[in-house]
């Protein structure tokens, strides 16, 4: 008999080495998350997946599963905290959904919908973040970056190219392109790269396909994110190499 822990009253089996998030998703239980992706080492930075473990808060994507843990996720206290985190991300960047071609396929937006976030609440920062349209096939819109580092991880761990990095600290932290010029056209990124598939928001965009799927027919227009994450569990790439967890992938 495998070990189990309790998640919102349900018994969740797990294998040695699994995190609370991995075991929960594999067991058909959704825990809201943003920077977690099944194909990469957990990052633990966005904190949206924070749960209460034996009464103390912990990021479920990095918390190792242990027998007998009592985990609370879908409770107002944790959902309220998630709501505030999502609101802070909306206030910190320039997230103008009506003019974003990722709208409907965006994880941040879908989380906002699911958590009934009606307003960012905080004072919007409206940062100045110029675009990088230098590459013939790819547009970078830094306005929407939430610093999840998925593109950094995908480019270095899967593509072996190291195209992206985070630079600066604290509020000055930002996504950069690893080229002497700082421009994407001077890197060896390709449309087939994993880094092209993983952006949860609208930063890394393939040019000229933005509205090939109309607004209203997109991934999160159909069903809320909480009803879809389980489709991806255990969220591993299939034989063709495509990953159902890569939101918005054409």
């Amino acid at each position: 008999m495998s070990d189990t822990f309790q998640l919102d009253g349900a018994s969740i089996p797990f294998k040695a080495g699994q995190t609370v998030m991995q075991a929960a998703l594999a067991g058909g239980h959704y825990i809201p998350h943003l920077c977690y992706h099944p194909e990469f080492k957990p990052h633990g930075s966005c904190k949206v997946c924070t749960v209460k473990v034996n009464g103390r808060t912990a990021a479920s994507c990095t918390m190792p599963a242990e027998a007998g843990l009592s985990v609370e996720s879908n409770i107002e206290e944790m959902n309220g905290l998630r709501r505030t985190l999502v609101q802070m991300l909306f206030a910190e960047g320039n997230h103008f959904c009506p003019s974003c071609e990722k709208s409907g396929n965006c994880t941040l937006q879908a989380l906002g919908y699911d958590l009934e976030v009606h307003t960012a609440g905080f004072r919007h920062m409206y940062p100045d973040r110029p675009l990088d349209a230098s590459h013939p096939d790819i547009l970078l819109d830094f306005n929407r970056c939430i610093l999840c580092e998925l593109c950094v991880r995908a480019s270095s761990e899967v593509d072996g190219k190291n195209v992206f990095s985070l630079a600066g600290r604290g509020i000055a932290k930002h996504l950069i392109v690893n080229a002497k010029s700082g421009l994407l056209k001077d890197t060896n990124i390709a449309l087939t790269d994993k880094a092209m598939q993983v952006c949860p928001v609208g930063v890394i965009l393939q040019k000229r396909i933005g509205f090939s799927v109309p607004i209203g027919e997109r991934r999160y227009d159909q069903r809320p994110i909480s009803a879809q994450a389980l489709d991806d569990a255990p969220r591993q790439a299939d034989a063709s190499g495509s990953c159902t967890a890569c939101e918005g992938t054409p």
Partner: protein
Amino acid sequence: MSKKLRVATTSLAGCFGCHMSLLDIDERLLALLELVEFDRSPITDIKHCSPCDIGLIEGGICNAENVHVLHEFRKNCKILIAIGSCAVTGGLPAQRNHLDLGACLTEVYLTEPGLAHGHIPNDPELPLPLDKVHPLHEVVKIDYFIPGCPPSGDAIWKFLTDLIAGKTPVLGHGLIKYD
């Protein structure tokens, strides 16, 4: 029959799209008019607010007049609702916020090709623009927010009928939209 609720509406730095969406509740407008009567609104053409139960404001704050109107609404409305992306986030007009206002006006009215004799409008009747566009909650307390560009007629209907029925308004999947 109990007294009808008084509702005021206005558009500040908006495009009237949210008002068009309010009209999109179609024949339900008749049902709404059983429950409310309109005070200041483009629908009545009343120019100033009297005391109201609900104020619906579309658009953000981009000039001095917007600030005055917003304060008039806050002073007169028991419940003030920001409706649409511009009122909630600043929206499309706020996409000028990372630019210098003077540089924007110069480019639009003076240096843009084809503006040989252009000048920056300075009629005293024109309200002065603010250096940044603000969502409503950065200027006065806002009680509720209906996001969307515009929110659908169904979303507005659901929100208002919940509110009028004395329930906490909930939009839910399909009605809550930011785009």
